[in-house]
C-alpha cells in the first residue's frame, strides 16, 4: 500500500496505516475499511490545517450594528491568530456569501484587506446559496491540488441582521432618468410622474426565483412526501439542541474564536442553542403551510449572523512549515448536483441524497466506512426526508436510477455536536463549520473517514469526504 503513495513527504500518513495494521485493537477501526486511504497517485494531498468561526448569533442580537465584512474580518483574523500563519504566505482567498451587501460586493477582498492580508493576495467571492463556503473550499482544494497554490484561505460569511432593501424598479428607473435629465423642466416632469406605488420598497426575495417557492414551504412538502411527522421533526430538532448544548458545555466547539463587538461585549459563545421540551415545541403553529403543515419555527434553522474560515494547504508545504494538519480533503470528493427538472415536484433541499452516493462511489468507499457524519440541518423535516430517501430502494430505483439504496447513516455517528438547527445557519458560513467540525470529531472520536453533506436552494447539493490526518 505504500506503493500507492507518490508524494514522498507524506510518509507520516503511511506510518499511520502501518500502525493501524498492527494494532487491531484501535476502538473505532475494528471494522476493516474498503480502502486504506483516499490518497490518489499523482495528485497532491490537500489538507485542512485549521478552521475557525465567529460565534453564530441569532440575527438582530449582538452583531446587529455590524456589517458582513466585519464578521468576515473577525474570522480571517482569528484564523491567522490561531495558526500564526505568515500573511504573505497566503496565495489566494476565496469567500462565500449569499445575501450580498452591495457596498462590499467582493466581500472577500474587503475583509482580507481589513484583516491585514497582503494586498498582493487575490481574493474572490463565490455564491451558491447555502453551500457557498463549500464551493469556496472546493475551489481552494482545486487550486492546491493543481499546484497553482500552496496555501489558500476559504470561508464564508452571512449577515442577516441587515439585508439590502431596495427602492422599487419604477422608482429606481425614475431616479436614474433624473440623473440624465438636463433641464429643470425635464426634471420636474419626471418628478411629476412620481406615484405612491413608486415608494413601495422591494425586499430581498424570500422565494426561489425559478420555482417561486419558499424554502420552508418546500421543506414542508418534502417532509409530507416522505410522511415525516411533526413529532419526528420536533424530536430531531430537540436532539440537535441537546447535543449542541452538551458539546458547548464540554468545550468541544473549539473552532469558535472570540469576537469583540465595538461598543459591546466580547462574544465567545453561540446564542441560539436552546434545548426546549417536546411539549413546548408542540405548541407552535406551522410557519409555512397553514393550517396543516409540520414545519415550525422550532424545527427549522433560524436566521443567523456569522462567519467562518479555513486554511487549506498542500500537505508537503504544511508539514514543511511545521503544521500538524487536521484532515485530508481532496478535490475529487466534492460533488454538485443540479436537478434538471426545476418544477415544484422536485424539492430543492433534497440533493444530499443524490450527491452522497456519487462521492462514495468515486472514492470506492461505502457508507459503513464512514466514522463521522456532518449533515447540514436546514429543516428537521428536510434532514429526515433525506435519511428516509437514502434508506429507500423504491426511491433509489425510481428517482435516482440506481439498483439499490445507499443506506442512511446510523444516528450514533450523525451530527453528534449539534447542527444548523441549534448552532445556527449563517448561510454561507455553514460549509466551513461542517468540515472543521467533522475534522474535530474524527480527531476526538478516533475515526478515519468523515462525510459532509449539505443542500442548497436551486436544487443543488454538496457532499465531501474528509479523512483524518495522523495524529
Amino acid at each position: 500500500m505504500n506503493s500507492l503513495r507518490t508524494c514522498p513527504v507524506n510518509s507520516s500518513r503511511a506510518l499511520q496505516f502501518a500502525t493501524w495494521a498492527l494494532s487491531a485493537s484501535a476502538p473505532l477501526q475494528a471494522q476493516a475499511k474498503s480502502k486504506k486511504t483516499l490518497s490518489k497517485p499523482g495528485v497532491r494531498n490537500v489538507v485542512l490545517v485549521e478552521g475557525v468561526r465567529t460565534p453564530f448569533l441569532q440575527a438582530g442580537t449582538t452583531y446587529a450594528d455590524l456589517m458582513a465584512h466585519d464578521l468576515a474580518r473577525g474570522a480571517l483574523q482569528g484564523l491567522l491568530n490561531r495558526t500564526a500563519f505568515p500573511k504573505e504566505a497566503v496565495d489566494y482567498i476565496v469567500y462565500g456569501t449569499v445575501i450580498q451587501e452591495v457596498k462590499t460586493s467582493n466581500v472577500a477582498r474587503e475583509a482580507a484587506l481589513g484583516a491585514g492580508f497582503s494586498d498582493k493576495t487575490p481574493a474572490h467571492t463565490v455564491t451558491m446559496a447555502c453551500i457557498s463556503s463549500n464551493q469556496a473550499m472546493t475551489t481552494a482544494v482545486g487550486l492546491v491540488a493543481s499546484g497553482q497554490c500552496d496555501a489558500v484561505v476559504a470561508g464564508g460569511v452571512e449577515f442577516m441582521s441587515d439585508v439590502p432593501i431596495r427602492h422599487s424598479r419604477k422608482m429606481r428607473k425614475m431616479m436614474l432618468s433624473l440623473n440624465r435629465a438636463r433641464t429643470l423642466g425635464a426634471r420636474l416632469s419626471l418628478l411629476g410622474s412620481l406615484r405612491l406605488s413608486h415608494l413601495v420598497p422591494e425586499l430581498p426575495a424570500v422565494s426561489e426565483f425559478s420555482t417561486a417557492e419558499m424554502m420552508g414551504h418546500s421543506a414542508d412538502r418534502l417532509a409530507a412526501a416522505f410522511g415525516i411527522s411533526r413529532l419526528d421533526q420536533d424530536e430531531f430538532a430537540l436532539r440537535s439542541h441537546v447535543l449542541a448544548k452538551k458539546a458547548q458545555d464540554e468545550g468541544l466547539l473549539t473552532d469558535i474564536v472570540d469576537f469583540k463587538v465595538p461598543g459591546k461585549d466580547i462574544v465567545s459563545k453561540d446564542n441560539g442553542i436552546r434545548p426546549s421540551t417536546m411539549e413546548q415545541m408542540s405548541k407552535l403553529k406551522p410557519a409555512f403551510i397553514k393550517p396543516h403543515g409540520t414545519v415550525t419555527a422550532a424545527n427549522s434553522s433560524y436566521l443567523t449572523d456569522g462567519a467562518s474560515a479555513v486554511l487549506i494547504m498542500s500537505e508537503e508545504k504544511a508539514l514543511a512549515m511545521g503544521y500538524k494538519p487536521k484532515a485530508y480533503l481532496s478535490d475529487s470528493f466534492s460533488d454538485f448536483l443540479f436537478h434538471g427538472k426545476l418544477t415544484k415536484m422536485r424539492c430543492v433541499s433534497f440533493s444530499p441524497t443524490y450527491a452522497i452516493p456519487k462521492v462514495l462511489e468515486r472514492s470506492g468507499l461505502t457508507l459503513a466506512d464512514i466514522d463521522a457524519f456532518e449533515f447540514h440541518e436546514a429543516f428537521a423535516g428536510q434532514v429526515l426526508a433525506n435519511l428516509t430517501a437514502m434508506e429507500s430502494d423504491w426511491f433509489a430505483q425510481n428517482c435516482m436510477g440506481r439498483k439499490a439504496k445507499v443506506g442512511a447513516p446510523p444516528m450514533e455517528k450523525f451530527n453528534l455536536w449539534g447542527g444548523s438547527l441549534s448552532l445556527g445557519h449563517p448561510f454561507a458560513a455553514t460549509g466551513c463549520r461542517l468540515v472543521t467540525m467533522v475534522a474535530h470529531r474524527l480527531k476526538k472520536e478516533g475515526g478515519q473517514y468523515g462525510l459532509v453533506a449539505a443542500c442548497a436552494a436551486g436544487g443543488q447539493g454538496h457532499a465531501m469526504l474528509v479523512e483524518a490526518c495522523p495524529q
Partner: protein
Amino acid sequence: MFFVINTHTHFLSRFSIRVVLTQQSLCGRQETPWTARTHVNYEIKGDVAVIRINDPTSKVNTLSVHMQKEMTEIMDEIWANNAITSAVLISSKPGCFIAGADINMIQACKSTEEVTNLSQEGQKMFEKIEKSPKPVIAAINGSCLGGGLELAIACQYRVATKNKKTVLGTPEVLLGLLPGAGGTQRLPKMIGLPGAFDMMLTGRNIRSDKAKKMGLVHQLVDTLGPGLKSPEERTIEYLEEIAVDCARGIVNKKIPLAKEKSMMQKIQDYIMSYPFVRNQIYSTVQKKVMKQTKGLYPAPLKIIECVKAGMEQGLDAGYLAESQNFGKLAMTSESRALIGLYHGQVACKKNRFGVPKKDVKTLAILGAGLMGAGIAQVSVDKGINTILKDTTLEGLNRGQQQVYKGLNDKTKKKSITSFERDSTLSSLTGQLDYSGFQKADMVIEAVFEDIAIKHKVLREVEAVTSPECIFASNTSALPIKDIAAASTRPEKVIGMHYFSPVDKMQLLEIITTDKTSKDTTASAVAVGLKQGKIIIVVGDGPGFYTTRCLAPMLAEAVRVLQEGVDPKKLDSLTTGFGFPVGAATLADEVGIDVAAHVAEDLGKAFGSRFGGGDPELLKTMVEKGFKGRKSGKGCYLYQPGLKHKDVNPELEEILELYKMTPNPAVSSDSDVQYRLVSRFVNEAVLCLQEGILANPVEGDIGAVFGLGFPPCLGGPFRFVDTFGADKLVEKMRRFEEVYGNQFTPCSLLLDHAKDPSKKFHK
C-alpha cells in the same frame, strides 16, 4: 360587469369535460363475488369512513347508474354504523375526482320524463348527503366537474389539491344542458348570484386557488414530489390524511363549518337581499345571454330560469324547475348537436394512424409570419425544439416577438411564471439560414402561397435535411400533390393546414396525397396532437375540405353584397344563423387578398359552381389596399384601440360599380341565410361523396372548429340530419332556378333527400 359569457368563437374552445364513454362492462362484476363493489369502496379509519371512488372501466370517474347505486348503499351503511362519526369522499384516480355525469346514461333516455327522473334521483341523493348528520368531506384532486362538482358542493366541507389538474366547474352548458342535480340551487347560495351565473353560463374551469377565493373550497393542500411512492400516489394519500384530520376537526368542533364572511361578502349579501336588485341581475344576465347567443342556445336561459325559481319561490320550486328543464334540454336538437361535437372532438384527439416510427424532437418552420410564428409558439409551448427561419431580419424579429408576446400574455395572466416563459422560449432558435436543419425531423413551411416559391423552398429543404425528414406545407388551398411534384421523396410530403390565430384556433387539417406514407401521416398527427390540436385528416384536392366549403359561401356573400345588402346586415344575418363571426368580418379577418386568391384558384379548379359574386370586386378592393383587418381597411375600417368598427365608406363606391339587381323571390332574410349555408353544406357533403372526407364526424368537427359553423347545429352533416335533407334540397332547387348550378344539390345529398331513413349520424 359581474361575469362574462363566452363568445361563440370560444364557445367550444373550452370543451373541457372529460366525460368519456364508460362502457358498462360486465366482466368486472362476473369475476368478483356479487357482494363486492367495483366502483366505490370504503375503509374505516378509526371513526372516519374513507370512501374511495374508482371506476375500473375508465380513465375517469363518471356518475353512472352503477356508481350511484354503490354510493347510495355505502352512504346507508355509514349512516347506520355508530362507530363512524364522519366520512371522507376521495377518488383513487390521479387527475380525476369525478368528471361529471355519464353522458351515455342521459343519451340513452328516450323521453323528457326519463331524464327528469334521473335528475330527481340525483337531487334526492345529494340532498341526503347535504343533510347528513355525519359530516362528509370531499377531498378533491383532479377534475371535479358537472355532477362531480354538484356532489362536492353537497358535502359539508371541501379540501382540494393545488394541482394544475384540479379544476372545478359546471360545463353542462357547453353540452346544451344544465347542472341537474341541485347545482343551480346550491351554487348561488354558496358563492353568490354573480359568481354562480358566471360559472354555470360559461362552463369554465376554475383552478383550486381561485375556487378557494370564491368560497367554493375550504382548504387547499399542496401537491407533493416523489417520496416513498410516486408523486401522484403520495399526493392522494396526503390529501386523504389532511381530509381525515379535517373530518375529525369538524366532529370535535375545532373546525367551524360556518365561515366568517368578509365585509365585501356581507355588503353583497345585503344588497342581494333586495328583490329589486336580484331582478335587475336576472334581466341583465338574460339580456347578455340573448345578445351573445341570439337565442339559439336554450340552456343558458333555462339555467337563469332555474336559479330564479329557487331564489324567488323556494327550494322545492327550484328543484322542480331544475329537473324539468334538465329533461327538456336533454331532448333538444341543440344539446344533441353539442354532445355530438363533444364526442367528435374526443375522436379527433386520437391518432388513428398509429404510433410513428420516429418521434419529432426538432421541428423547423419556414417563414416567421403570422402563421409560422403561431406554429412555433404552440410547438415550443409543448417542449419541441423549434427552429424558426425567415429570409429577413425584420421578418424574423416580428415572428420572435409574436412568440414572446404569446407566452408573455400567459405570464401576465399568471398561468405560467416568468421563469417558465423564459425556459420555454429557450427551445426556440431564430435564424436566417438552413444551419441545423440536418437535425430536423420535420419541416413545416409557412411561406407565401405561390407554387413556385413552395417548390423553391422544398428543393432547398430536401438538399439540407436527412432523408427521414418530413416536409409539411401549411397551405390553405394549393393541392399538396402539386407541391410534392418537386420532391424527390413524395412519401414524406404532407399538408398541415393551421388556422389563424394558431394559438387560439383548435383545428388542424392534415392533407395526405396518395403518395404520402402512413408513417408520415402518423407523425404529422402526433405533432398536431402534441401542439394541442383537434385533427381532421382529409384527402388532397383544391382547397382540401375547409377552404373548399368556405369558398362558395364567401362567393355567395360577395353576391349578397353586390345585391345591395350592406356588410353590417350581412354580418347580422350570418351571426343570426349561429355563426360566431359574420361573413363580412370573416372576409376581413381572413384577408381580402387571400380570399381573392383562393376564389381565383378554386374558381379555375371547380368552374362555375364556385361562381356567384364577381371575383373582380375582390380584386378591385385589393388594388385599393382594402386587404382586411391587417391593412386597416376592408369591408370595415379598423382603428387601433377602437373596438367599434364602421363600414368602409369607400367600399360602397366599389359596390356601386359592381351592383346587381336582387331577385325578390330569393332575397328574404331567411333566403339569404339559406343561400349562404346551403352552398357551404352542399360542398361539405360533396367532399364526403368524393372521399376527401373520411367520415361525417371529421366533416362536422372541421366545419365547427375551423370555420365557425354554428355549434348549435353541430356541423353541416348533423344539420342535414336534423333539418332534413329533403327540405334543404327543396330550398336549393328554388335557388337553382334563379342562380343555376351553384345550387345544384350533389348526388349524396339527393340520396339522403330521397330516403329519410338515411342519416349521416346514427
